[in-house]
């Protein structure tokens, strides 16, 4: 299922691949997910019950959308540290617009536009100001959450809307609408990354910026585009977040930032840019959600969960050293 373009020449028998550390590095997230599922299922049979699977997929939706956005940025050798606070900003904009009251469709649109603008500002400053993406998005992390606090005056807004309720409770069988949206986002992202001119230019920008520029690719425009995409997806995630918790809170969502980067790393995307898939980070996101969910089911204290996530992510990063 890896992207066909990057793996088309691999035609050796699969048995020889099992002895290759690179293979394991590439599929670390999937292997980890399978191992976790087996372990948790053995320890607690309710883990794979329909209800729990449905709730895990729903919980994973926001993280998948954020991880896809983060993948675009990391594939250009950048990083978006502001992705979670941009989501918070989007949620607050949604809440304020909804209570204005401007109706749900317009409120959702404004949330996405606000988040996309924050992303575009990141991109423009990084591309034209030639400032390290780490610094710029760190600044935006603070600025966006500050802006969210100012807009909301520090207070959460409760949003009871039938459409948002349906988004978080309805669905196709065990696949909640939020998860369906996340899957659609991932499919579109995969198509963009591997089957469009923009995707090729993005990978070229991440892998060999000098060569990309020599071939007439505007790496600056690619940079602006990926941060804008990341912001837009943070805005979409904001809608899913508001639907899920039934309120727009100006609270910081730091764990979403860490987990979005973690999912991307688990998914085998190179932090040096130019290499990666979309399916990898999606599986990475599912793994992180399964890990937290399983630990909760086993009655492990919440305090241990960040520790577990940290250990898993660093192990995955170690594995990527064996990537081909």
């Amino acid at each position, binding site marked *: 299922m890896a992207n066909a*373009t*990057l793996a*088309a*020449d691999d035609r050796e028998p699969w048995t020889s691949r099992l002895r290759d550390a690179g293979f394991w590095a590439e599929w670390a997230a999937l292997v980890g997910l399978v191992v976790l599922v087996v372990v948790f299922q053995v320890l607690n049979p309710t883990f794979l019950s329909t209800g729990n699977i449905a709730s895990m997929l729903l919980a994973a939706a926001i993280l998948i959308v954020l991880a896809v956005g983060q993948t675009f940025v990391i594939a250009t050798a950048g990083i978006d540290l502001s992705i979670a606070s941009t989501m918070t900003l989007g949620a607050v904009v949604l809440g304020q617009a909804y209570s204005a009251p401007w109706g749900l469709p317009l409120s959702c649109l404004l949330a996405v536009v606000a988040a996309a603008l924050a992303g575009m500002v990141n991109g423009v400053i990084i591309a034209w100001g030639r400032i390290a993406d780490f610094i710029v998005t760190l600044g935006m992390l603070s600025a966006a959450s500050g802006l969210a606090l100012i807009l909301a005056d520090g207070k959460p807004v409760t949003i009871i809307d039938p459409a948002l309720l349906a988004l978080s409770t309805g669905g196709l069988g065990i696949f909640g609408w939020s998860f369906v949206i996340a899957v659609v986002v991932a499919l579109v992202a995969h*198509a963009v990354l591997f*089957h*469009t*001119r923009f995707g*090729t*230019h993005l*990978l*070229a920008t*991440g*892998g*060999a910026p*000098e*060569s*990309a520029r*020599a*071939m*007439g*690719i505007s790496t600056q425009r690619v940079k602006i585009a990926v941060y804008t995409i990341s912001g837009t997806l943070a805005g979409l995630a904001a809608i899913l977040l508001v639907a899920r918790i039934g309120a727009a809170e100006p609270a910081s969502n730091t764990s979403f930032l860490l987990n979005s980067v973690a999912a991307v790393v688990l998914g085998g995307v190179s932090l040096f840019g*130019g*290499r990666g898939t979309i399916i990898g980070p999606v599986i990475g996101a599912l793994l992180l959600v399964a890990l937290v969910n399983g630990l909760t089911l086993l009655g492990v204290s919440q305090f241990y969960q960040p520790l577990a996530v940290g250990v898993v992510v660093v192990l995955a990063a170690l594995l990527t050293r064996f990537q081909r």
Partner: protein
Amino acid sequence: MPPVLELRGIDKSFGPVQVLHDVAFSAHSGEVTALVGDNGAGKSTLVKCVGGIYPIDAGDYLFEGRPVQVNDPRAAAELGIEIVYQDLALCDNLDIVQNMFLGRERKSGLVLDEPTMEEMAERTLAGLSVKTVKSIRQLVSSLSGGQRQTVAIAKAVLWNSKIVVLDEPTAALGVAQTAQVLELVRRLADNGLAVVLISHNMNDVFAISDRIAALYLGRMAAQVKTSDVTHAQVVELITSGRSGELGLNNGSGVAS
């Protein structure tokens, strides 16, 4: 037949430093023209002027006998002039097809037209009798130095180019790979292209070139038929700007 590329009286300065003085240069279809000269003689500058990266200060730039303005790389590419620089401008993380079409991808609707691109790449490589590449979907990072050079050259000829300039294509290669790349360069000329080969290696130059242009301190010392000169004469042209009757006259402004 007139040369496909002809430069006359080219001057180029960077601030107070004049790098090219009154340089004349020509390249003919179906021929390999070797551009030789010591470090700092102006080879790279001349090539960048040809490729439109440096606009020329003075002189005539004639393409197929017509005077043209080449002020940026795009203008050069539109005329059919492709330059393969030493760093090859390849992306290691992309495959051969992606690299050959980078920046000029074929699309059908919104998505990439992979079948057409694969077919064009396949045809170009076959036209160059390249058989060393296993799959055109191989990542460039998995290729040897000679294969990378081959891909860079194939990328340059993919666009029905008329002139291909190669900047030291064999500099980083071993013996066998050098022979392969030289053979490929010769084949480009035999297919009717005008090839300009920058090289420091006299053996390479004499093995495949039809003409030799020797630069000396920013001046064209001589442009001669390869069959008319000896190894030693070319070395003299490179190191002192003249050799017997050939080359720059005394008192032509070159410090001696």
